[in-house]
Structures are given as structure tokens and as C-alpha cells.
């Protein structure tokens, strides 16, 4: 009877955790952040273009990677948005929905993975606690509320890991493991490194079980399935397009940091490129374990973090250190020990070869082993408590802290983020498009692009006809993955995105759109422009101005 009750209690607790994860990710989904970043708009519009024409914005049929801003976006997320558009329409909610959904789907797989590979005494506690911490994790929540592919990739990776461990005893599940891992690789750039390395580490660790008679054929089937899924990716893997992100961001392609300007005879040693690159890599790699980054500063990117909130809560810090110590010392934790330590060491690698310090988007899989360490720390401390009443008080304190953390999430994600980070989420373009529709009619419109790439948001909110866009903004499709040249200016019906030329653009009657730097108050006065609309950020500062040139007034003057 007691066992039955315990079993149901576990399901109830897990359901409550799932509900918490649902609320923290679904509340104001599509509305907070209020803007729509250009990458989000680009992915959404490409999905719309695929739906309508079977081609991307440039006219390439079902691309393996999406050219977009010459950053060659990974395809999986875009293809996931496509079937949602007929249901929800082309909206901010739609483009962020796959992130939310796969963020939520990660929970059951994470729970099952942890409870399967941890020793029985600890399994359920660790699985539930880690799930709870993930439900309130600022790191995971941010990428579960916005259009970032890393979240979807994490889901495939965790699911693949789960089926791998199931497959050690039931080999047919190795096929599912191969399927999910194969889907993880094209889902996000960093998974191109993390998944293969983790696979090799796990294959080596469990080679005896995998090479037994019953398993070999399933490994073969899994490899074949994985190869088929990855074949399109492999076909383009040596093109400049596929390698563009790696090429532009990696530390080995740029001049190494730390060169000392000296004419000393030791210069060739102390300024040696290999030595400096290793040093640079180590500093970037260790930064992913740095407590100040984890608990105070968070990601330096203003779209990859929330104001006044780091990647983890400060209260989790002591448990993190305790849990790490426990993880390294206790050899009786089960298979989870090797898995967690391996993922802890491997997850930061792709992020650490890029020049940006502590980028949480590229190192998202790291959230899992770090939360497992925190959970271990909490369990270890709880089990050290001697008296029953102290344990009850500790549980109440813990739940109060979780409640406080939820309020902190609300404060940072909903209140502060909207006020302080709106410009970085490209807030205002939806209102710009509404204003253009209201004021422009058939009049030509010039949208200044000196400080951005607004075309993706314009076509997104206009739901502009993809065929027309493809026709007017075509590229050399034969060299889609190899030709890295790019034309920034775009034509969208009567709208052109380019820099405003104050000499020429005033000579005809048209609408000009720009930010407060492009179209200042002084320029409105000087050039006799008519201010049609002024769109403000939540903090009251000017986001965009929409003006009409006044050719008649200028001529009469």
C-alpha cells in the first residue's frame, strides 16, 4: 500500500514540476520578450516561404542549411515552424512555440534518463530534484521562451542519451538512440561537436555491452539510419556555407590574444601562436565553470540573459560546490557519474573555441550536468541533517526559496527585461509595419538599415508573398552553399531597405523609416519632413520615426 502511494506521489510531484515548467515557459509566450529579433523573424519567414513555395527566401528548394544572413542557419527548427503556420498563423507565438514545446518535452526524457542511470537509492530523488531545478532554471527558460535552436537540439541529445542507456539492456532501442542523436547534429551548430564526442565516449565506456552478439545488428541498423539522416548534412559539410559560423567565430582564425610587443630574443617563444591559442582556449573553457559567470554575471549577451538574473540562482552556489565534490569523490552513484562528468567536460568545448566569453546558447547542454551537481549537493546536505524536524524545516525553506526564485523570474523576465532589453530584441518593427500600411499606400518607402537588417522583420509582419520576394531578391542558386557574397539591400514591394541618402531621397515624395540616429529631430526640421509616426521603446526613448518627404514645401522654399 505504502509503495503504491509512493509510486503515485512520484507521478504527482513530477506532474507538478511539469506544470511549473509549462507556466514558466508558456506565460506570455510570444509577448515577452516583446520584440522579434531579426534571426527569429528570418527563421519564421523562411518557414513561411517553405510552406507557400517549397523554397526558402532566396528560392532554394528545401535547403539543407538556410542561407539567411549568410550565417547558414541550421534547418531543423525552421522545418519545425513550417507545419505550425497553418494552425497559429505567422506570428511571434508560432516561431517561439517549437522552442517552448521541445523545452517541455525535455523533462520526461531527463527524468527517465536520470532515474535509469543512477543508483536505486538516489534515482528518484535526483531525477525529481533535477527536473524541478530545470523547471525554474533561468538558462533553460530563456531558450524555452524564444526562438533558439539550441533548446530543440538539447531535447534530441537527451532523448538520444536515454535510449542509449536503455539500449544497453534492450539493444533495439539503440536504433532510437541513433535517430535522436542524428537529429541533434543538424539542429544546432554546437551539437555537431558535442553529440559525436559524447557518442564516442559512451561507446568506448560501454563497448563490452555493445559488442555482445545481440547488440551488434542494432548498432549497425542505428549507424545506417543515422547516416541516412545525416547524409544531406554530410554532403554540404565542407562548403564555405556550412563552415561559415565556425570560420567567423573561432579563436584560431583570428590574431591570438596576449601578444607582447617586444624585440626580445624570447619573442618567438612567448608570442608563439600555438601557445597563445591554447592559453586563450583554456581561459574561455574555464570561464564556463567560473562561479562569477554562473551565479552573478550570466551571459554577457543582452538577448541571452535576463536583467538582474544570472544563469543560476545565487542560493544554488554552495550546493554546486558540494555536489561537484560529491560527484568526483563518490564512486557509487551509478552510470550517472560518468555521464555527468563527461558532459560537464565536453559541453563547453564548442563554445570555448569561439571568441565570445561565456555564451550560454552555445553551451546549453552544460545546464544538465551543472544542475545534476546542484541537486546532488542539495541531497547530500539534506541527508546530513540529523533530526526529523530540521528536515521538515529544510524542506519548507527549500520550497520557499523556490517560490522566491519564481518571483525573481517574473521580476526579471517580465518586468525588467521588457523595459531594459526591448531595443536588443528589435522591439517596434511590428508597429513600424502597421504604420507603413496605414500611411504609405503605394508610395515608395525607404527603411534605413545602417544599424541592422530590418528586412526579415518587415517581410515577416507583412506576411509578404514569398514568390515575389524570391523574384526580386534572387541570388546565384547554383552556388547557394559556396558563394559567400551578399547584397544587404532588399526590395519588398514598394519598400526598400538600404541606407537613407539625404541628397537623393529628398527629391521625391516617399516615406522614410529609421531609428532616432537615422532620422533625428534636427533632420526633420532641416529637411522639412512630416513626422507621421514615432514609435517608442517601453522606456520612453524613440525606437523609430516614420516621416514623409515634403517635395512641394521644399520646392516652394
Amino acid at each position: 500500500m505504502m509503495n503504491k502511494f509512493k509510486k503515485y506521489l512520484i507521478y504527482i510531484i513530477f506532474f507538478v514540476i511539469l506544470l511549473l515548467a509549462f507556466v514558466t515557459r508558456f506565460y506570455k509566450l510570444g509577448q515577452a520578450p516583446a520584440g522579434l529579433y531579426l534571426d527569429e523573424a528570418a527563421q519564421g519567414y523562411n518557414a513561411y516561404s517553405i510552406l507557400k513555395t517549397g523554397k526558402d527566401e532566396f528560392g532554394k528548394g528545401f535547403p539543407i542549411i538556410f542561407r539567411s544572413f549568410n550565417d547558414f542557419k541550421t534547418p531543423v527548427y525552421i522545418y519545425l515552424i513550417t507545419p505550425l503556420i497553418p494552425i497559429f498563423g505567422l506570428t511571434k507565438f508560432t516561431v517561439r512555440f517549437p522552442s517552448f514545446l521541445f523545452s517541455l518535452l525535455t523533462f520526461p526524457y531527463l527524468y527517465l534518463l536520470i532515474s535509469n542511470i543512477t543508483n536505486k537509492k538516489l534515482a528518484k530523488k535526483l531525477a525529481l530534484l533535477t527536473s524541478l531545478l530545470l523547471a525554474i532554471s533561468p538558462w533553460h527558460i530563456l531558450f524555452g521562451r524564444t526562438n533558439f535552436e539550441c533548446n530543440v537540439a538539447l531535447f534530441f541529445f537527451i532523448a538520444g542519451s536515454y535510449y542509449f542507456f536503455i539500449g544497453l539492456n534492450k539493444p533495439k532501442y539503440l536504433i532510437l538512440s541513433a535517430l535522436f542523436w542524428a537529429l541533434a547534429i543538424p539542429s544546432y551548430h554546437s551539437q555537431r561537436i558535442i553529440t559525436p564526442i559524447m557518442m564516442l565516449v559512451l561507446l568506448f565506456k560501454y563497448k563490452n555491452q555493445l559488442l555482445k552478439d545481440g547488440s551488434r545488428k542494432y548498432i549497425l541498423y542505428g549507424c545506417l539510419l543515422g547516416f541516412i539522416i545525416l547524409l544531406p548534412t554530410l554532403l554540404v559539410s565542407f562548403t564555405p556555407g556550412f563552415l561559415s559560423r565556425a570560420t567567423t567565430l573561432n579563436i584560431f582564425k583570428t590574431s591570438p590574444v596576449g601578444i607582447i610587443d617586444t624585440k626580445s630574443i624570447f619573442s618567438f617563444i612567448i608570442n608563439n601562436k600555438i601557445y597563445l591559442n591554447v592559453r586563450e582556449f583554456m581561459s574561455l573553457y574555464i570561464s564556463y565553470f567560473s562561479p562569477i559567470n554562473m551565479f552573478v554575471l550570466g551571459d554577457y549577451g543582452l538577448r541571452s540573459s535576463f536583467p538582474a538574473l544570472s544563469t543560476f540562482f545565487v542560493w544554488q552556489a554552495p550546493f554546486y560546490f558540494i555536489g561537484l565534490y560529491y560527484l568526483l569523490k563518490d564512486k557509487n552513484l551509478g552510470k550517472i557519474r560518468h555521464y555527468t562528468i563527461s558532459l560537464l567536460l565536453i559541453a563547453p568545448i564548442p563554445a570555448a573555441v569561439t571568441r565570445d566569453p561565456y555564451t550560454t546558447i552555445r553551451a546549453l547542454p552544460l545546464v544538465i550536468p551543472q544542475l545534476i551537481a546542484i541537486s546532488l549537493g542539495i541531497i547530500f546536505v539534506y541527508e546530513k541533517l540529523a533530526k526529523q524536524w530540521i528536515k521538515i524545516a529544510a524542506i519548507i525553506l527549500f520550497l520557499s526559496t523556490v517560490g522566491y526564485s519564481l518571483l525573481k523570474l517574473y521580476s526579471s523576465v517580465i518586468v525588467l527585461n521588457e523595459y531594459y532589453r526591448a531595443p536588443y530584441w528589435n522591439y517596434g518593427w511590428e508597429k513600424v509595419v502597421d504604420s507603413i500600411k496605414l500611411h504609405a499606400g503605394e508610395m515608395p518607402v525607404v527603411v534605413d538599415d545602417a544599424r541592422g537588417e530590418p528586412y526579415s522583420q518587415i517581410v515577416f509582419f507583412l506576411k509578404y508573398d514569398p514568390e515575389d520576394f524570391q523574384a526580386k531578391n534572387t541570388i546565384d542558386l547554383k552556388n547557394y552553399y559556396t558563394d559567400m557574397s551578399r547584397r544587404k539591400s532588399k526590395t519588398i514591394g514598394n519598400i526598400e531597405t538600404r541606407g537613407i541618402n539625404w541628397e537623393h531621397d529628398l527629391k521625391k515624395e516617399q516615406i522614410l523609416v529609421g531609428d532616432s540616429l537615422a532620422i533625428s529631430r534636427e533632420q526633420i526640421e532641416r529637411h522639412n519632413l512630416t513626422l507621421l509616426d514615432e514609435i517608442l521603446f517601453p522606456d520612453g526613448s524613440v525606437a523609430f520615426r516614420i516621416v514623409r518627404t515634403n517635395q512641394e514645401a521644399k520646392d516652394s522654399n
Partner: protein
Amino acid sequence: MIRLKNIYNKTKLPVLVFLSIIFWPLNLFINNSPKTFLVSVAPAILTALSYQEPLFLLFIPIISPKLLLFPLIFILVVFYFKKISKTNVFLFLIFYSFIFLLRWPDFYNQSIFPYDYEAQQQVVRDTQLYDSVFLARLFHNKAKIRIDDFNTNLFSLLDPNNYFFNFHPRLPLSPNQMLSKYGFATFVPLLIGFINLNKIKYKEYLISVFIGALVSLSFLKIFDAHDFILWIPLSILISSGLSKIDNLSNRKNYFGEIYAVVLLIELVRLVIK
């Protein structure tokens, strides 16, 4: 040849330890005046002497008022570990209280406690953004300014990049000389030393110094150079880690040789810079 090999094997570990720990004091010496160097180094030496006689700690706040809280926290932690009698603690606290009263004004002016106008204005601005007064006050208040400053300092002191890469790739949050404390390869023996902290003979002493230093330095506006007090315990851990690596296996490993080469390059960089 065998004699040379024996000499090499005997001196290898001490040389590696020396190369590892010389960075920080050398860098402090090169980049500061003799007075500043002595003010930074003296508390570390007194801390080392306090292992035999805790009363040496009382001189620390006299030399450096910024470290006013260090002796108090150190003694309390040592008392927790039952490494000092109640009588000695009582005596210590009596002497300490006089020094505390004497040095408190100097400490206070260099701590996180004085009024911060900018931070206060930020709190006022942020509280306007909330519909709920409760939420506004819960997350934006005067206490939070001090707590945030304390946390920032504490986690900066716990940041490995602070010790091995001058905070690189991110900038320090308060003015800092950006001095190398250790060569980056020293991260390995230090980590091993931490993992095996339990096996070190003076672990209670080390933990007391760590907690005392981390907490007392976190109360400062700028802890730069005064964190040298951590040099002694960190050096012990590095030495322990190197010793562990040296005894790791019967098979020959070249870690020591590679480690020495990397450290020498770092030392040359330090001197040339």
C-alpha cells in the same frame, strides 16, 4: 648519470612548486612600490605564522585595515573545528576588540557599506517599473545593494579566471591591477589539491584561512592586492597537487617537464611585460 638522475628526481618537485608559487609575489613586487608590496605580503606572512600562534593575526589589521574582519572570522572557524580553546578565543577577542575599534573608521571607508548614490538611484528607478509594491521592494532595496556588492566580490574571489588569466575573457568588476597570480597550467595541480583537501594535514587551518579571507575580502570595495592573503593556502594546495601528480603512477609521465616549460614561458612573459 644515475647520480644526475637522482638529483633531478629529488629536486624536480621543489623546483616545480617554486616555479608555480613565485608568480604572484614576483608580479606584486615588480608592479608596486616597496610599501604597497610589504602591506600586501605582510598579512600573508603573519597568517602563515598564525598556524603556530594565533595572536600574530592581531597585527594584520594594524598593518592593513582592509583586513580588519579576517582575524575574527579565522578564529571563529578555527574554534568551530575545535583547534583552539575557549580561553584562547576569549583572550583573542578582548585584544581584537581594541584593534577593531581603532581600525573600524579606516575599514568602513574602504568597505561596501558607505552610501552609493548611483546604486540608490537605480533602485528608485527600478521600483517604479512594478505594479506590485511588494515585488518592487522585495527585489530592489538598500540591503540588496550591499548584498550584490558582497556577492560580486565573493564570486570574483572564487573565479579561477581571476587567478590564472587576470579575469580574462571578462573584465574585473572593480578597479584591478590585472596581475598574473599563477601560470595557467597551475590550474591542474590546484584542482587536484582541492579535490584531495581532505587528505592534507593542515586542512582545518587552510579552510579557516579560505573562509576568513573570502568573507573579509568580500566586504571591501576593492580587494585587489589584499587578496594576497590567499597565497599561502593556495600554494599549499598547489604543492599538494603537484606531489599527488608526481606519485600518480609507476609509469613515467612527462607532466612535470611540460608543466615546467609552460611555467617558464609564463615567467618570461611576466618579466618582459
